[in-house]
């Protein structure tokens, strides 16, 4: 493969690749992302390949593995082209039916189509699926068409033409102006204007300058960056190269967390292929511009995703943050000017260049332009990655796209921004998702993880979970974060165990203020957000825990217990067997009773009690009825 030496050669290659594709040729596209792999996608691919071979259809049907399409709950996902039929939850046992019914007879396998939850209709096209209908999948749509291990696919969809335009038709200053005009804001959580960051780095003194892709994605519940890095690494590399040109950098780093092995592998392959084609490395596209990229794997520390900490980690040291009065844009890696942006921010850059800043500004709100990918997870029906224009309301996100709350339960709260974000109660569901709007109500956009909670989630418990997580991930350098979070955790643990005292909530607020104001980095600075918003909007839950020793959601272990209703128990003996601490007494025809002293409240008895009996119930500890006398016989219903 010869290196591409000019934009016209790139165009020629693109036309060649497109010419080889026959739009009418049937092809089977299977999602090979981590989510679908977890549900058996690799076996589906193997069985399809075997079936094609057996029926002598090799060469007549293409089979392709692509990146993550975001609807992981309904994976493995298979798309049949050219009809664009979407099948969900495909198992290897379904392959033969798909082969005979759809490939050969050109019919549909109805049970594998998406069933709308409300209308119970089968969706024939993707535009019929409520999950996708309301999305604007600018960044993610190409995941369905590209095999991340083949650069030709990316070139065929128009890839690298933005880079060609930048290198031959624009000066670095013009690129900078375009990005500033588009008002692209960082998608990693801070929302800082990207153009301004690039400009600071460009104007800072010191050589060499570095550009960095932040694919650490430490926020639990977020997997947007995984999907982009796994499914379309070239879009990020192209954006990075354009940014490097604008800033004047010749060396770049991609920091990927090692918990994403597929993303690491696909990025490695992408870099190698781009270098082979002359789209990375020396003399890119024959323009004389040099730029090399190295991969740096993370090693499992949440705090290392913070920009100054990440740069310290790239230097091979422990990833601890540095004080912020020195901007990393001026003194970053090895004290040289370094520009760090999130994966999604970089992926937006080629689109801004090809389609123009005005196109980008046409979506979104006044302060937040463009689209954003969110990961909608938790207690909704349709969980997955959602790409929407900024400004959509939470209500639309949860009910129109998410399909409402699972199992018909009641909505309680939605949490956005991970451990740095805040809880949004029901009365604020019409807030528009926008960087500035969220700050006003005490939350933060963060990386875009949206976790929906229902009536069975205890807000105090989730706040405690976040503080627990952050206190473990704290690097320990500064006292407010290290000690403050530990004390807050202590108080929250006591509240959840029923040992809360009057004044605890006020103490939490005071500690939060201290931690927020005095911490060195954003981990400590934003850690109190979940606690503060939970106190602000769900004060009654705290009161219930402290004053009444009662957990409204029935979650906090010390405040609930399990009780076998005597009138429903049929003495089948299953729970007696399954109880891990042998806490249930009873025998044939003798009502089963739980010994509260031995019960560890693990929920096993509730899980295993046969549905037709449903004798076990979870009740507040203080409402425990008087116990049934031992050896009481079961009253059998006829």
């Amino acid at each position, binding site marked *: 493969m010869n290196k591409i030496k000019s934009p016209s050669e790139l165009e020629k290659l693109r036309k060649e690749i497109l010419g080889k594709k026959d739009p009418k040729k049937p092809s089977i596209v299977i999602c090979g992302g981590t989510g679908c792999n*977890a549900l058996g996608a690799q076996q589906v691919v193997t069985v399809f390949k075997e079936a094609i071979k057996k029926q002598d259809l090799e060469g007549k049907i293409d089979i392709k593995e692509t990146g993550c399409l975001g609807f992981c709950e309904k*994976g493995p996902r298979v798309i049949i082209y050219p009809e664009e039929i979407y099948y969900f939850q495909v198992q290897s046992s379904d392959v033969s039916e798909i082969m005979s019914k759809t490939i050969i007879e050109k019919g549909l396998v109805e049970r594998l189509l998406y069933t709308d939850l409300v209308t119970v209709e089968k969706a024939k096209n993707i535009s019929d699926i409520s999950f996708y209908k309301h999305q604007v999948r600018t960044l993610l749509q190409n995941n369905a068409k590209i095999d991340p291990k083949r650069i030709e696919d990316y070139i065929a969809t128009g890839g690298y033409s933005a880079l060609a335009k930048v290198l031959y038709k624009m000066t670095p200053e013009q690129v900078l102006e375009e990005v500033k005009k588009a008002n692209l804001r960082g998608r990693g959580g801070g929302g800082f204007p990207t153009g301004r960051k690039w400009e600071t780095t460009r104007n800072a003194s010191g050589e060499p300058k570095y550009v960095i892709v932040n694919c650490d994605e430490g926020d*639990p519940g977020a*997997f947007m960056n995984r999907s982009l890095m796994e499914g379309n690494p070239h879009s990020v590399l192209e954006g990075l190269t354009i940014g490097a040109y604008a800033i004047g950098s010749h060396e770049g780093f991609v920091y990927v967390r090692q*918990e994403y092995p597929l993303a690491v592998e696909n990025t490695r392959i992408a870099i190698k292929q781009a270098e082979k084609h002359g789209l990375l490395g020396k003399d890119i596209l024959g323009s004389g511009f040099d730029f090399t990229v190295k991969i740096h794997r993370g090693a*499992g520390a949440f705090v290392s995703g913070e920009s100054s900490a990440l740069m310290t980690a790239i230097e091979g040291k422990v990833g601890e943050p540095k004080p912020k009065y020195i901007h990393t844009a001026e003194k970053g890696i090895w004290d040289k000017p370094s520009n760090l942006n999130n994966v999604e921010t970089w992926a937006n850059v080629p689109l801004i260049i090809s389609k123009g800043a005005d196109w980008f500004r046409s979506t979104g709100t006044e302060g937040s332009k463009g689209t954003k990918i969110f990961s909608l997870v938790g207690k909704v029906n349709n*969980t997955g990655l959602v790409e929407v224009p900024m400004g959509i309301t939470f209500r639309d996100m949860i009910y129109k796209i998410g399909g409402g709350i699972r199992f018909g339960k009641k909505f309680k709260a939605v949490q956005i921004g991970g451990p740095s974000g805040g809880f949004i109660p029901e009365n604020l569901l019409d807030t528009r998702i926008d960087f500035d709007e969220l700050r006003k109500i005490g939350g933060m956009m963060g990386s875009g993880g949206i976790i929906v909670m229902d009536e069975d989630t205890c807000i105090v418990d989730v706040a405690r979970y976040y503080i627990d997580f952050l206190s473990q991930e704290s690097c320990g350098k500064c006292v407010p974060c290290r000690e403050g979070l530990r004390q807050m955790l202590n108080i929250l643990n006591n509240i959840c165990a029923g040992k809360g005292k009057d004044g605890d909530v006020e103490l939490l607020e005071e500690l939060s203020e201290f931690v927020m104001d005095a911490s060195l980095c954003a981990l400590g600075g934003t850690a109190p957000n979940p606690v503060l918003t939970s106190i602000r909007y769900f004060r009654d839950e705290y009161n219930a825990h402290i004053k009444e020793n009662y957990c409204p959601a029935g979650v906090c272990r010390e405040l609930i217990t399990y009780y076998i209703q005597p009138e429903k128990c049929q003495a089948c003996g299953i729970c007696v067997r399954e109880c891990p601490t042998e806490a249930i007494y009873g025998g044939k025809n003798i009502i089963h009773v739980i010994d509260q002293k031995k019960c560890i409240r693990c929920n096993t008895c509730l899980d295993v009690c046969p549905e037709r009996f449903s004798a076990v119930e979870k009740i507040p500890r203080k409402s425990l009825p008087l116990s049934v006398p031992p050896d009481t016989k079961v009253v059998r219903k006829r």
Partner: protein
Amino acid sequence: MSEKKHSILSQLQNNATLSKSSLLLRGLEILERYYTLGLDQPLIRFELRRLEEEAVHYAKILKRIRRREEAISDLVQELRDVEEIMEKYGADKNALIQILLDIQTRNHWLPKPHLMWVAERLGVPLARIYQIASFYKAFSLTPKGRHNIRVCLGTACYVRQGQKILEAIERTLCIKAGETTSNGKFSLESVNCIGCCALGPVMEIDGQYYGELSATKAVKVLSNYS
């Protein structure tokens, strides 16, 4: 004495051309003879003695019954692998974390002799390596079991009762998260987001993902592993 040992001995005697680490490696190979050479390298002798003790201790941790010489030659083989890993990154100090990640992937933990070797070769204090190994969660300073169970406790999986899955496994295996079973079969740890949030609660064993779990399903999965 065999031909090979003869040549190594003469190399050691003309040791001006060898780097300290090569010296150590070769010295280890013919340890029993080294002390009789009367070479004027007290520091090397001290290091060799230390590495020799580590080799025996290492064999004990891995529950390998070995004579002293076999333990040493086992260790020398593994240290050569570590050399290979370091060469891949050009023995660059700045790639320390990447080197440690590769050693962790290969051995499933970071044995002390390997860390001592890395410290020696890269010219980095051993304390700095321990600083990094104890800061990042990916590294383990104790041996892991044959199968490493990682239960996800990220927010999405937590809200879908991920904690109960972890507890069920803890009860079944009689260990807590972060520990290894006494027969060396399973190690258990909790992680903070594997990126499969839509399938929660999720568990990963040896690269195989299991989603949409309940406590009973998770325990059943364990019986597939020998």
